[in-house]
């Protein structure tokens, strides 16, 4: 019996020691703490790890150049498991235990919406790449910005592009998402104005075949299909459209129709001529080149570019406000992101300029990074690609 008591006590002690460890580290130095909360596992698993990696590379660069305000930067990377419950628990830990000034990179809209109240209530700054319109409409008191264009903007751009390709009968095939209804409403209005017609169908994104859905859509004989799903369901959808002999044009989001989709389908004729569009990273910019180098990827995705910009902006805002707090970042992020001044594309240069008393204006890997009052991105370029012979070829950027 006594042995058991001892064992329990040891277990308890080691548990307490594990919990207390960050406090011990905190006493040794006084670094500035920031965090990424990206999906390292779950549905967002393909994106989150690279995002965490590029954030670490920015922190390493800045630390090598002497840190911010003479303090070292300490980055913590947590996993939101692409799940709001796990995301909230991880955020609570980052806010209350690590006491970070900013959380960056939340990906799924549901995770961002769940984490946002914790952030604004505890005055922690949140940078996100989620697209749902509702996110910036939350009462976030300025503690949130997003670098991803909201779904209204994305859908409007795709509609304009489809019409420019001469589409007369557009059919949208989309799973249930926060932007499904917005997509239908917007496309309906946009397309009607141009004298074309639009119809929509919602499908279940966990199904293994879409033959009935495809049959239903083809009955009305559309000349353009907007396949607005994610990669796994779009793979099945494109195959079923090909089998059904659809001869019109197809367009989808770049995050779904990517090289991985082409490789997994494995038959170039299925995807021949399919269009993909996405918020364009600022290709050719120095910041974009640095993201390429840090990740070792030839075409880093938009989310990775955006997280690179989050870290740079947050660090410069801390220097600008001379305060490593969420409030300091909230009050100063627009001062370093927009409004003219010395043009910079990385935090190391920006921090030097700020130390020299200059006003800076950051443009990063994802674009100019200017925010409106609600935290939405103001200007964003899109790129349109077409698959030819299994390869993505650029149609236009604009």
């Amino acid at each position, binding site marked *: 019996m006594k042995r058991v008591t001892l064992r329990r006590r040891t277990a308890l002690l080691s548990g307490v020691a594990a919990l207390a460890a960050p406090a011990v580290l905190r006493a040794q130095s006084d670094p500035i703490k920031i965090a990424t909360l990206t999906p390292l596992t779950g549905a967002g698993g393909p994106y989150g790890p690279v995002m965490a990696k590029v954030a670490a590379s920015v922190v390493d660069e800045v630390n090598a150049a002497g840190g911010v305000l003479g303090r070292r930067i300490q980055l913590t990377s947590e996993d939101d498991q692409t799940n709001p419950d796990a995301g909230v628990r991880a955020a609570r830990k980052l806010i209350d235990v690590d006491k970070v000034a900013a959380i960056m990179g939340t990906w799924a809209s549901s*995770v961002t919406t769940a984490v946002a109240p914790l952030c604004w209530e505890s005055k922690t700054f949140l940078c996100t790449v989620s697209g749902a319109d509702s996110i910036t409409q939350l009462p976030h008191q300025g503690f949130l910005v997003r670098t991803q264009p909201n779904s209204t903007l994305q859908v409007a751009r795709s509609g304009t592009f489809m019409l420019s390709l001469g589409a007369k009968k557009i059919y949208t095939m989309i799973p249930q998402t926060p932007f499904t209804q917005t997509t239908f409403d917007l496309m309906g209005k946009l397309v009607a104005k141009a004298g074309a017609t639009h119809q929509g169908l919602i499908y279940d994104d966990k199904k293994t075949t879409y033959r009935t859905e495809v049959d239903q859509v083809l009955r009305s004989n559309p000349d353009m299909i907007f396949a607005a799903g994610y990669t796994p369901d779009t793979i099945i959808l494109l195959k079923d459209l090909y089998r059904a002999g659809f001869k019109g044009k197809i367009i989808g989001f770049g995050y779904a129709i990517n090289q991985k989709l082409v490789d997994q389908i494995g038959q170039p004729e299925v995807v021949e001529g399919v269009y993909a569009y996405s918020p364009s990273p600022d290709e050719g910019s120095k910041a974009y080149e640095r993201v390429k180098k840090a990740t070792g990827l030839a075409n880093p995705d938009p989310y990775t570019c955006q997280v690179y910009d989050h870290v740079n902006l947050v660090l410069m805002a801390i220097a600008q406000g001379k305060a490593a707090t969420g409030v300091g970042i909230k009050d100063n992020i627009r001062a370093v992101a927009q409004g003219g001044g010395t043009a910079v594309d990385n935090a190391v240069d920006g921090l030097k300029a700020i130390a020299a008393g200059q006003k800076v204006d950051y443009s990063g890997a994802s674009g100019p990074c200017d925010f409106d009052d609600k935290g939405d991105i103001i200007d964003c370029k899109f790129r349109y690609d077409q698959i030819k012979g299994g390869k993505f070829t650029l149609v236009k950027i604009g």
Partner: protein
Amino acid sequence: MLNYLLFIATIGSIYGLLALSLNLIWGGAGMVNLGLAGFFAVGAYASALATTDAHLPIVAGWILALAAGGLAGLVVTLSTTRLREDYLAIVTLGFAEVVRLVAANEVWLTRGTDGISGIPGPWKALLGSDFNAVYLLIVLTILALVFLLMRRIDRSPYGRVLRAIREDAQVAQVAGKPVLRFKAEAFALSAGIAGLAGALYGHFTSYIAPDLFLPLITVYVFLAVAGGGTGRPAGALIGAYLLMVLLESARFLVELVPVISAVQRAALKELIIAVALILVLRLAPGGLLSERVPAAPRLPMEGKS
């Protein structure tokens, strides 16, 4: 740090309610309910909609959640009266998925995949940073009440009938027990508690969405009950808290490991949790606290002879 511990304790207590709910139906009556996440969702949505759209007081939302969960439980048992074991498990799993899909697709009612944000918390504005502590007290009080009720049931003739049904429903029937009524009542009560847990969760974090109610929650609660001890309320409760301690302390343990990348850390965390659960089930297959079946009361006849 304190706020974080309060937060984790509250979530742990809500998992505790779910574990008590599952223990009643699985440990008690032997019915496998894989639809726990569904009842959790029904309660969360009932209370969230009642307090945001209909502006009812929060307590009314909680009572409504209890009732909605119970009603859903009743519907599920009465429509599956002929199913047992694996078949019941499959139907309940299906039920949970149906609830999630309805929540995602009936946008007019549930706001779809956007979820419902801004769910009010009791005296949240007034309490400020003390909210977490007060809410934990509320949840603990409810948990204590439910726990006492469960222990009462466990030791009462009612609990013995449930156990008899678990061991052999036919024998219980022959002994003159209305098996269906017992099953339906127990299932409805269990589902009602899960619904109440959902409501407590929603008003605590202020946001619910269909993504929250994936089968993962059900799996966690099954692990908690299996690890803590099936058939004993205290075991289920301890299992739920241990699970939460395990999930969260793994976070800090992996931070102590140097050089590995963020992804490897996330994978290592999952690995630690899996190994710990395997060890518990290997070393204590009946759970940490195994079921205590009280001796049958002596019949008065025996004493006389």
